């Protein structure tokens, strides 16, 4: 495992969630989670990013208490809660498909946690009202979940969890069921709410954009392990492994002969597509630049930008991205089959493997 060992967040005290050697196998066979160590700071917006089956949701469920770890410990605020049931843990969960109680009104759904904990009626009503106001759902108290849209249910689920003022809020792919526009809206909304309440958010997603745009730090999961932990910029600009380079952003790898010729070293290297400048074959590369000659194999016009897939003379293929500053689709498509030089700054070449 190549996770960085830097402290969680410079200006925040550590220790909202601490995972030590966490492992989980199902039916004694599948190692869904295979030794996870992680420290999440107080007030952090933390993303657990990975493909499906990478173990991120299982880790979340072990923090919530729905799954008992096969090995390892879960600490919340420094207290070992590994053996505690979900209802004795000071965390709340926003479920992937919201898990609202269909037979209760919105008010009863949001107030459920308070009712169970015997919060007096007047205080309960006030807190439910405030929570619904926070997610901008005033006036929906008497409705039932079936009468709400997906985005509204999502807000109810959020209010139902936050009304209990947990130490940590766990979110399991909370935006996965929403369409793109609504998802962007809710991303901003979640950030605002997290700033307002100041609670630690632990957020599971398979969407790299979501993880990069929303979180303070990201843990990238693969096959039950953490490949890298760091800020979005660290994970994106300096991927620790080939998996991270490929999963967070476009896979753009140089290895074998291509690496030796272009980089001048043996190993596996990653370059981000937007760092690559597409130049005319006669243009010289700058002094701090690496360059590679090749032929444009494919041009993918994507509206705001165009992706150029270039087959290198040295072997392998790199993707370069260019903003469509003053070119239309007809112009860019003409580049197919032309010879080009790809150039990028040496510092943007990141070693991701031996």
């Amino acid at each position, binding site marked *: 495992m190549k996770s960085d060992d830097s402290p969680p967040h410079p200006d925040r005290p550590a220790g909202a969630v601490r995972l030590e050697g966490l492992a989980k196998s199902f039916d004694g066979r599948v190692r869904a989670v295979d030794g996870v160590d992680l420290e999440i700071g107080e007030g952090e917006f933390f993303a657990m990013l990975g493909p499906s089956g990478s173990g991120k949701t299982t880790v979340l469920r072990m923090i919530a*208490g*729905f799954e008992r770890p096969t090995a390892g410990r879960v600490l919340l605020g420094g207290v070992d809660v590994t053996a505690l049931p*979900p209802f004795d843990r000071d965390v709340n969960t926003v479920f*992937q498909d919201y*898990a609202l109680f269909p037979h209760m009104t919105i008010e009863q759904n949001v107030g459920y946690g308070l009712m169970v904990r015997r919060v007096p009626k007047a205080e309960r009503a006030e807190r439910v009202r405030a929570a619904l106001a926070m997610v901008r759902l005033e006036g929906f108290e008497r409705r039932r979940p079936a009468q709400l849209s997906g985005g509204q249910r999502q807000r109810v689920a959020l209010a139902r969890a936050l009304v209990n003022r947990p130490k940590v809020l766990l979110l399991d792919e909370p935006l996965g069921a929403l369409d793109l526009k609504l998802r962007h809206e809710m991303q901003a909304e979640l950030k605002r709410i997290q700033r307002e309440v100041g609670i630690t958010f632990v957020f599971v997603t398979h969407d790299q954009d979501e993880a990069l745009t929303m979180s303070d730090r990201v843990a990238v999961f693969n096959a039950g392990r953490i490949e890298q932990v760091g800020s979005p910029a660290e994970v994106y600009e300096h991927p620790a492994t080939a998996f991270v380079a490929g999963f967070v952003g476009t896979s753009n790898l140089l290895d074998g002969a291509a690496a030796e010729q272009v980089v001048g070293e043996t190993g596996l290297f990653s370059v981000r597509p937007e760092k690559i400048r597409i130049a005319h074959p006669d243009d010289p590369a700058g002094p701090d630049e690496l360059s590679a000659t090749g032929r444009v194999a494919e041009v993918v016009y994507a509206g705001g930008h165009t992706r150029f897939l270039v087959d290198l003379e040295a072997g392998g293929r790199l993707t370069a991205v260019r903003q469509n500053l003053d070119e239309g689709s007809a112009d860019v498509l003409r580049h197919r089959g032309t010879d080009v030089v790809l150039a990028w700054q040496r510092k943007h070449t990141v070693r991701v493997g031996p």
Partner: protein
Amino acid sequence: MAPPPTAARPLRRAASVLHRRAGLRLALLLSAPMAWLVLAYLGSLAVLLLSAFWAVDDFTYDVERVWNTANFSTVLTEPVYRAIALRTLGIAVAVTVIDAVVAFPMAFYMARVARPRTRKLLVVAVLTPLWASYLVKAYAWRVIFSQGGVLDWLVGPLGLSSPGYGTTAVIVVLAYLWLPYMILPVYSGLENLPANLLDASADLGASAGRTFRSVVLPQVLPSVFAGSVFTFSLSLGDYVTVRIVGGKTQVLGTAIADNVTLNLPLAAALSCVPVVLIVGYLLAVRRTGALESL
């Protein structure tokens, strides 16, 4: 592929006629079941209702087609019949309550605790008794309840004895007979209950008991009512079990059977009582939304 041989041509032509005419299609599809429903089911029900308004000659016991409502007033005012109706109702309610109480934990284990393999075995185990003859099962219970029988032998050491043939035996045997009809809907209701609702309840601080009361029960109650439609109506109409293990117990079923040969119109009027009770019960149950989960 080559086109089908010419022999298939007329069939294809018929098919294309059907394809164009939706009304004809529907008529072909539904004519047989509709005929069955209207003639056999609604027809016999109408005849039953009609004959309840006829009379019987006091000497010859022949049915006379004289329009009168005497049979209904007999059924409603005669204390014997009122007692029989109430007893039948009580038996049906008792059977339903027992079945609900017994079925719930069983169904819960099947739907939420047992592993998939065990679950399948249990479903088969619940269904198996339905394949055995009703009479065989009733007679088996007759042996169990008999004096010096299995039950006596079992509870004897505790200083108890078998209740013998009577209302208690009827309730026990009917509850046994109809139990699968309660387990299956409750099982399917529990199985359809999303697991993450239980997680969510625990996550929000609810213990298992609280989750059961506030989340599981309200959502599975319609399934229980759906099952109760079977246990209730089957118990209300039963007459064989009562004859086998009921001793001298009279219920609506036996009262109807006793009157069929002597006073058919009275028997018809009597059989309107369970019909009315069941319709009333269905109307009450419908308000819970249970009929949607059938």
